[in-house]
């Protein structure tokens, strides 16, 4: 027994010595590393600063040059020219050239991602720039070129079939060790073209449990822990070695509604459902952040798309019942709403990939019951949402939608609320005025009419409720106090690791 104790202590000390030796900082998040393919696992490489895109997003949420120094569009808005940065090399020593950029983009264009939706006729290299010729004007091209799927890799990173066999980028860090699904370690690159990193080595650990990330935050000397649950945050707030930072993300938890449903096609019913939801209760009690209750679809941080003229959502269960009565419902002995002899009974699909969704679904189930809507919850794979949209079996779904997968929310707003709706957007709902406004915005979102068009779209969504917004999304991050320069990106595209310093 003595020997056992001794050897355990020895082992523990040896382990401690080893972990002290390497001066690394740790990043932990729930997102597992999947593959070297930019479309499959690329987000990790851009976030960690290994790879870069032509365009990126500045701290104010606008576009900023990255591998392209500037860009311009022709008068007919069909020819875009992106000038490339000089003297940039990939980590394998190859120079960044227009041909290398075109090669990466050609591969990206064939795979899922925002570039696929761009009506590109051709991409050509001209001097040190890339010229995109479009079939029709498309104002979102620069935003699409900021998405991680359009990362620029060395031509040598690809094998014969166009698959990436090595992540060779231009960012401030190089890959030291890539061991999916859970670990990636990176080292700083001395000849980086921009602000060079100060920290030598950083390890990324994907830990799917929030409790694990919280325990890591408490035990590692220098760590940034992403996406922690409300309970852990309230505990870690009191830890003298840690800071808690948070930022609103352009992600919204909404209820997707099938507008062909005999009951929910009535606007009064959708208004009743919206008014039955106690958003403040869910935000404050369940998620412990009262500020994340939605007042409209998009949060104030997306200022262009946040319409201050709109009347915020109200919680009013009595009025909700009145609205159901107006829609022709009566309430039976059990208190459930009935119309034409049928009880108002629906199934809400949701998924646990975002752990708060089932909790919120439960709260909504309870709140709907109070106005006489009987709702079952079916928790499954998130693929059941697009699946149910396509085969028409979906009634309602509680989902978490990122409205800014690229820098401009227009990309997803246009697909979600435009003609035909979308898997993660409106279902069997169409509004011709909205569709026209979105078409106009896609052609040009900077002209005088743009503001009016955006206002029209946001108002229609608020009034007609093609989806019912519930909660905005706040990213909470725990950071060791010995790390300076940590900043959070509202689009979650980068951790800006080269700006971080370790202070003793």
């Amino acid at each position, binding site marked *: 027994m003595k020997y*056992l104790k001794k050897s355990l202590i020895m082992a523990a000390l040896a382990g401690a010595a080893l972990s002290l030796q390497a001066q690394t900082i740790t990043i932990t998040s729930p997102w597992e590393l999947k*593959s070297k393919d930019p479309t499959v696992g690329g987000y990790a490489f851009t976030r960690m600063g290994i790879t870069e895109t032509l365009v990126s997003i500045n701290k104010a949420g606008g576009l900023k040059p990255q591998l392209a120094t500037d860009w311009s569009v022709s008068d007919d808005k069909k020819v875009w020219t992106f000038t490339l940065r000089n003297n940039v090399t990939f980590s394998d020593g190859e120079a960044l050239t227009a041909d290398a950029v075109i090669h990466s983009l050609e591969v990206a264009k064939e795979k899922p991602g925002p570039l696929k939706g761009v009506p590109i006729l051709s991409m050509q290299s001209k001097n040190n720039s890339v010229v995109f010729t479009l079939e029709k004007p498309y104002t979102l091209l620069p935003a699409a070129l900021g998405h991680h799927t359009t990362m620029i890799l060395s031509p040598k990173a690809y094998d014969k079939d166009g698959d990436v066999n090595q992540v060779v980028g231009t960012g401030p860090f190089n890959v030291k060790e890539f061991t999916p699904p*859970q*670990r990636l370690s990176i080292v700083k690159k001395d000849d980086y073209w921009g602000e060079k990193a100060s920290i030598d080595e950083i390890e990324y650990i994907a830990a*799917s449990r929030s409790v694990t990330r919280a*325990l890591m935050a408490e035990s590692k000397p220098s760590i940034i822990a992403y996406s922690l649950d409300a309970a852990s945050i309230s505990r870690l707030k009191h830890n003298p070695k840690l800071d808690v930072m948070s930022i609103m993300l352009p992600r919204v938890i909404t209820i997707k509604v099938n507008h062909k449903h005999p009951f929910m096609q009535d606007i009064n019913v959708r208004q009743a459902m919206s008014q039955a939801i106690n958003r403040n209760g869910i935000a404050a009690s369940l998620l412990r952040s009262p500020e994340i209750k939605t007042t409209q679809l998009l949060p104030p941080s997306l200022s262009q798309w946040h319409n201050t003229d709109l009347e915020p959502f109200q919680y009013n269960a009595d009025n909700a019942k009145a609205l159901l009565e107006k829609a022709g419902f009566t309430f039976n002995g059990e208190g459930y709403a009935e119309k034409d002899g049928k009880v108002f009974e629906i199934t809400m699909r949701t998924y646990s990939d975002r752990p708060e969704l089932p909790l919120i679904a439960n709260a909504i189930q309870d709140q709907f019951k109070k106005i006489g809507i009987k709702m079952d919850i079916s928790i499954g794979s998130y*693929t059941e949402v697009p699946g149910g949209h396509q085969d028409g079996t979906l009634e309602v779904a509680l989902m978490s939608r990122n409205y800014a997968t690229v820098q401009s929310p227009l990309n997803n707003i246009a697909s979600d609320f435009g003609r035909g709706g979308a898997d993660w957007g409106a279902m069997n709902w169409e509004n011709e005025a909205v569709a026209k406004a979105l078409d106009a915005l896609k052609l040009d979102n900077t002209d005088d009419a743009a503001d009016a068009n955006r206002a029209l779209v946001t108002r229609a969504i608020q009034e007609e409720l093609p989806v019912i917004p519930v909660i905005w999304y706040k990213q909470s991050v725990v950071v060791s106090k010995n790390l300076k320069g940590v900043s959070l990106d509202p689009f979650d595209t980068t951790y800006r690791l080269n700006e971080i310093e370790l202070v003793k």
Partner: protein
Amino acid sequence: MKRQTVNTLLNILAWRSIQAVFVALFVGIVCFFAAQGLGGNMAYRIAGGRYGIDLMDSSTAESVARELGLDRSLWVRLVEWLGDSLTFNFGNSLVSGSPVIEEVGHTLGHSLTLAGASIVLSVFIAVPLGVLAAKHPNSWFDKTLLFCSVSLKSVPNFVIGILLVMLFAVQMRLLPAAGHGDFSYLILPTLTLALGLAAVSVQVVRDSTLGVRNSTYFLFSRIKGLSDAQTFQRHGWRNLLVPVVAFLGIQFITIVEGVVVIETLFAWPGIGHSLVHAIFARDIPIVQGAAVAMGLIFVAMNALVDIVVLLLDPREGGKS
């Protein structure tokens, strides 16, 4: 080694090898059909696993279906898998695109390391304590040990894990809380599992030892004048270890296959965790690869237990 023992040993190896081939085929085929029978649209699931929630929609699902030829008949795809497997080509993951052998090798390696280390540590805890308890049955030590065993077993593994992390990582800052890399990362998950395993195996050791101590041959040896220690040395160890080895074999298999909770708690890239993900994403090659590998380990473990038991107690071999 006696000739008979050698013969039995060869028999075991031959029989287990044949079994291995059948297990691999059977498990591979069953997995293939089981995955087809799971609910949900396969192309959707694969697209979801691959591209994540923000990029996945019905059009990515369609392109996945086209790329993988999911509309081809089941039999064509099964025959293809069988043919490839015969040439030791186990295909690529449908999600990551990397070779199954690489992915399963990585996660299985980590699971085996964790399982092996836990079993070894649990043996070092359970055997001395169990043998000691059996020496004085119903003593305060024996009773305390039983109490500890029961309490430890009634606490879920992950609670033990969290407590150990709080102590060694958060309070003492001696060990990393989670992750993998050097040896230090292995210690806490190993200790967590070993404590849970030892809680049960210590009682198996105790009962087995007690059985030996109460046997007539043990009594006879004492009567003929050998001391307790000598008797235990000569007649105790071999006899008490036979059931213990068989039990450890079962424990080993259980932890290789079923410690998803501990793997995720410690962010340990084990096969249980990756199998769960693969099933969600309908990543059939990975599911097949992982299941076949685990089936083969099961067979190998049984073979190993047979061999160790044979060496400990060659009489059985002599008889058959």
